[in-house]
């Protein structure tokens, strides 16, 4: 029985999703927006329940398939909050442009469930199933704007490439299972630590795994789907794609790499270094020439994936003689998690601001922001703050998280790659400034004050406060992250590996 209590948050979110989904059948059409508030209230309750029941609990369920620990709790809480924010920022958009709010929110809740499962998975197949649940929900949501051809196109592209990446991932998993006989992270770590030389088959399997995950997070050269999907999707879903799916994938990647793959870091580090360098360079350079704001933010978020991959590449320090040191690994894990949170808050704010400004979906040109500084000072201020935060400037969250992450990566011996990341942040500042020029300097084509729904203003201000708070006082969040990262770095193969090398 005890096991079911540990799964309570997941059960509750699934129940909530079914409740909202079936609510669509019984609630009158003009009352359906209330379903959003039901979803938010439900997520709030689940958050409280998760924190109450799982606090300081560490267990592995079902033979290690499903892990309850500080790390998964941190991400579960994060995803629940995130889901709440996405629902709130969808309310107005859904009411104006989309049919079937119940299905929209229901599917959104299923993807939140998928992300929570992903954070807890301690083994490859559980992770795969969670990832598929997440992806299938997102396929539907991206194509949800049925009458907008761009949304349909985006959905199709996303499904085709997503299916391809799932195939890669699955093939990689089968290869790993075939050669190692296990899909559990901790056992994989133990086996890899005892294997000095990897067989070619295993290397192929790992490369396929990395490629499949790189598809999911849109790392270059597996990023082609992202800008189209981002552009066509309903704007709140674009935000969700940019934030939720990436945060969830990185929750898995961090656990997979630091528990299972860390012993063979010498073999995969250079792959990740190349991926990270390509991703941050190409994402930021291509962003410069975009004239559609959603595509611009899509490429900028690709650039951010590059920074996060830099953190994954820096999970261990590989000396020139092949020796491995994990001295600053926790610093790096904390940096990656901090950056995920900072990036998420910031991107949510940026996309919500965009969904408020543009009156018709499908025409989100940068020049449409002209004169926003006068049309709506609040939205303009929040977007400017988000742009500065994404570029990594104080007093916003992005500065602290980048500084933390890059310092950590540098102390793991990847100073040049951190330097490249800093330089690419500088490049990103250029295209953010071009957007800010439209907002504050150019005169408006349509000078009428912008009508912003009160709910959206409230959410924007909360996100703004979050950005500033994390930018000047990240202490509490970093403490939580430190507590969470203990679960994946101190347990498992990491420390054993250091001992075996001593």
């Amino acid at each position, binding site marked *: 029985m005890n096991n079911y209590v540990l799964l309570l948050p997941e059960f509750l979110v699934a129940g909530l999703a079914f409740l909202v989904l079936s609510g669509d059948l019984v609630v009158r059409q003009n009352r359906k927006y209330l379903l959003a508030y039901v979803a938010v209230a439900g997520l709030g309750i689940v958050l409280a329940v998760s924190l109450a029941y799982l606090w300081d609990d560490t267990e592995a369920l079902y033979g290690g398939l499903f892990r309850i620990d500080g790390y998964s709790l941190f991400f579960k809480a994060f995803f629940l909050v995130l889901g709440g924010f996405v629902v709130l920022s969808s309310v107005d958009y859904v009411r104006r442009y989309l049919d079937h709010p119940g299905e929209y929110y229901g599917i959104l809740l299923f993807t939140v469930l998928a992300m929570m499962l992903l954070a807890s998975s301690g083994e490859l197949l559980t992770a795969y199933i969670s990832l598929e649940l997440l992806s299938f929900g997102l396929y539907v949501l991206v194509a949800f704007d049925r009458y907008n051809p761009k949304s349909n196109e985006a959905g199709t592209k996303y499904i085709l490439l997503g299916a391809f990446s799932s195939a890669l991932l699955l093939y990689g998993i089968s290869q790993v299972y075939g050669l190692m006989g296990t899909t559990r992270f901790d056992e994989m770590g133990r086996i890899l630590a005892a294997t000095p030389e990897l067989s070619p088959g295993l290397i192929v399997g790992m490369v396929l795994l990395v490629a499949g995950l790189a598809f999911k997070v849109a790392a270059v050269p597996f990023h082609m789907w992202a800008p189209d999907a981002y552009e066509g999707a309903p704007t709140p879903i674009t935000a969700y794609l940019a934030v939720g799916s990436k945060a969830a994938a990185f929750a898995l990647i961090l656990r997979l790499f630091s528990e299972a793959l860390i012993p063979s870091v010498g073999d995969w580090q250079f792959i990740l270094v190349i991926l990270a360098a390509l991703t941050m360079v190409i994402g930021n350079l291509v962003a410069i020439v975009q004239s559609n704001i959603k595509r611009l933010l899509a490429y900028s978020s690709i650039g951010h994936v590059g920074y996060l991959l830099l953190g994954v590449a820096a999970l261990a320090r590989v000396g020139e003689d092949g020796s491995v040191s994990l*001295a*600053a690994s*926790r*610093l790096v894990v*904390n940096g990656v998690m901090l950056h995920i949170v900072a990036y998420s808050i910031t991107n949510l704010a940026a996309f919500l601001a965009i969904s408020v400004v543009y009156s018709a979906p499908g025409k989100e040109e940068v020049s449409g922001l002209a004169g926003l*500084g006068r049309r709506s*000072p609040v939205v303009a201020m929040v977007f*400017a703050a988000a742009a*500065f935060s994404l570029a990594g*400037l*104080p*007093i916003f969250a992005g*500065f*602290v998280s980048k*500084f*933390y992450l*890059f*310092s950590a990566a*540098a*102390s793991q*011996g990847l*100073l040049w790659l*951190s*330097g490249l990341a*800093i*330089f690419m*942040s*500088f490049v990103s*500042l*250029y295209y953010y*400034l071009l957007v*800010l*020029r439209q907002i*504050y*300097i150019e005169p408006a084509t349509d000078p009428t004050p912008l009508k912003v729904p009160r709910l959206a203003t409230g959410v924007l201000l909360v996100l703004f406060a979050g950005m500033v708070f994390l930018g000047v006082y*990240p*202490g509490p969040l*970093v403490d939580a992250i*430190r507590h969470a990262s203990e679960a994946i770095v101190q347990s498992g193969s990491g420390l054993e590996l250091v001992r075996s090398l001593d």
Partner: protein
Amino acid sequence: MATVDSYILFIIMALPMAGAAVILLIPGRRVAAIRWTAAAVALAVMALTFYAFLAYDHDVGGFQFARTWTWLELPGPWPLGFRGIELSLAADGIAVPMVLLTGVVMFTGVLISWKIADRPKDFFILYFLMLCGVFGVFVSLDLFFLFFFYELAVVPMYLLIGVWGSSTDFKTFLRTKEYGAMKLTLFLVAGSVLIWIALIAVFAEGGLGTFNLLALRDAEFSNTFQVVFFPFLIVGFGVLAGLWPFHTWSPDGHVAAPTAVSMVHAGVLMKLGAFGILRVAVFLLPEGADRWMPILIGLGTVNVLYGAFSALGQRDLKYVIGYSSVSHMGYVLMGIATLNPLGVSGAVLQMFSHGIMTALFFAVVGAIYDRTHTRDIMVLEGMAKRMGIVAALFVVAGLASLGLPGLSGFVAELLVFLGLFQTYPVLGILGIIGAAVTAVYILRLIAKVFFGPLDPRWKDQTDASPIERFSSGILVGFIVLVGLFPFPFIRVIDTGVTELLARVAGS
């Protein structure tokens, strides 16, 4: 008193930020309330910087008013235990005059901006954020916060120039404010990329898990490391200090900026660059300094001469002042590069003196531009007939700039030259030639613009308003004060410089 003193730097740094927050909450249409709030905050800050300057005990020296708050712990196997990132504030003899300078320029800048009609709320918020950054850099002992404030000081510039600035029409081509703003921001942030890389390199190489300057001072950086990373810091901070050949943002940016922003930028922000070289580069990497200073002194000499000759050829009043800033920052860089007490003290005093003087220059040019809507030297003639006080103020700034004895510029440049002759006599002569060229372009400018027959176009001009007189009067007071009684300043500066150089000599 000691407990109050230890909070004073925090208050000075945080007050502009708090002021920005308060102004954010005032509705934008209540312009008078916004202006008076801004003036009150700036006045309070200036009073506190005065107090800090007077309370600094130059007999004791060292870092005073020190206070440290733990801000973020960094996990890891550090030899000294968890240190992490600290908000560690303290000021030494180099920082204290800079803080005073910032306080003075901040207050006069608010007064000069009294008439800003377009979105004054946003203007003052950004202005105060920028000044919070400036104060923060001068008083931070933790590299994280030093860099945090450094970026904070640089970034609002884009909007301040882009929104409130002015474009310059050169007949054949147009220098738009958007161009100036983008150029300035990209140059300065490119510089901060180099600084950032050097800082994380210092963190990684130091291996102490802390960014605290005083702790990192004891980390033994190898000679190779110092020699490799010193140029990152010199160029990174040098961009902001107007170091040739990375100075080109400075004239374009200063010209495009609104008056108060030019005052703060040329008066104080460029000093952040020179201060960063002293506080971070020389302080942490003395062996690197030893190796690279001969190069810096050469570049500084180019700065002096190149800036002076460029100023000679300008038609736009603000461009003249912009290039003269490049030239004068050259003296600062040369003084720093001598690495002897006379030269470095002279450089720091020059930072103070040039800050006040340039602020006065830009205030006066702004006053002329507000009235005539032109800055073209060819068009302005005989302005002294109608704008006697404005002309007098410009003459004071000009004479200080060319180094007339009795005004602040003379003392500072004299010290720099004395320092130079101890180490590099030839470059000292070149520096003096630069001062001579300065005299040529300043005197020509004064003769052309202010004296001679009055152009009938300008016969209806009014003289300086009471606000302009009051704010410029403060600046003139400092120019004369430093010129006649430099010793209170030199005494304070000297304690900071001596301690810094003892470290270079010891390496």
